[in-house]
């Protein structure tokens, strides 16, 4: 038992453990209730339940898809379990070249889940941290619904079920991410320095 706990506490879990576990969610959810793996529909369901405002996009019976809300509730609980009992959530060593790059931008390169200097501090980055959180969060929700799915529903479940739309979406995710991470963010860091 103790050695299992030790094993689970290994940080980080290597990709060849993490990836197959994530992939197995797809057949698991199909078996449990004929549900196709995905997360971002939950954003729509929450809006439909809480603030439909008479909009046609939210005029459907979200209760029929309530499994998705149980699923994301489970994800939130899992986050607590990982951080409380499995020693997840601390900083970790990134690739040395990545640490160097982040430091050249003036960040610490600490490898935090959410770097404290960016999202939680008062320094130069802290001032724009809230902007990044709010604009970035908005784009994730808006873009995922516009694209009809996110990295879970499109990149994992969609490609695994050979859907063309999901391949297109996944390529678009990467284009948007590459441009933002490699061009927009460095320009922003430079402007702050």
């Amino acid at each position, binding site marked *: 038992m103790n050695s299992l706990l030790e094993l689970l506490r290994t940080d980080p879990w290597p990709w*060849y453990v993490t990836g197959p576990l994530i992939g197995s969610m797809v057949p698991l959810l*199909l078996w449990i209730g004929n549900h196709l793996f995905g997360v971002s529909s939950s954003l729509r369901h*929450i809006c439909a339940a809480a603030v439909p405002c008479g909009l046609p996009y939210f005029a459907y019976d979200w209760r029929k898809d309530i499994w998705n809300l149980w699923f994301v509730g489970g994800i939130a609980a899992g986050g607590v379990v990982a951080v409380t009992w499995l020693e997840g959530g601390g900083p970790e060593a990134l690739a040395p070249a990545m640490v160097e790059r982040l430091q050249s931008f003036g960040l610490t390169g600490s490898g935090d889940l959410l770097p404290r200097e960016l999202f939680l501090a008062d320094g130069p980055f802290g001032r724009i941290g809230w902007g990044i959180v709010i604009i970035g969060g908005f784009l*994730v929700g808006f873009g995922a619904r516009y694209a009809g799915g996110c990295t879970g529903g499109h990149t*994992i479940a969609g490609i695994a079920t050979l859907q063309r739309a999901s391949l297109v979406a996944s390529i678009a995710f990467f284009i948007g991410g590459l441009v933002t991470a490699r061009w927009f963010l460095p320009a922003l860091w430079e402007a702050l320095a």
Partner: protein
Amino acid sequence: MNSKVMRYGGVFLGGLAFGVILIKGRIASWSRIQEMFWFESFHMYGVILSAIVVAMIGVQWIRRLELRSLQGESIKITPKSADRGQMIGGVLFGAGWALTGACPGPMYALLASEGLPAVVMLLSALMGAWVYGAIRARLPH
């Protein structure tokens, strides 16, 4: 056992496992997502590619064996509709992913441990989804 309890209990436990995986596998990490977009580590690519392969094998296996769900239904996969949304929405999503270092799954996983920034992030994503619903008719699809 009540079939609803089994279904949603199972879904909840699956979600719980997924949340643990997202944190312990460092998918829910701003730093790791930057590393991925700078091609400095194989980690995220290994995760995504092996996840797709395992999911594909699982789905093929269900089809070949004609497995049924716990409720005894035959398993069907509804096709995703294709339009320009995947391209335009996809690029916007990718930009948000690089900024926050989190896609929707990680946003839920980070909710309890990362405090106010994680809460505001999820609320912003909900607002994004709502605004999409509000202006959907005027967007190119």
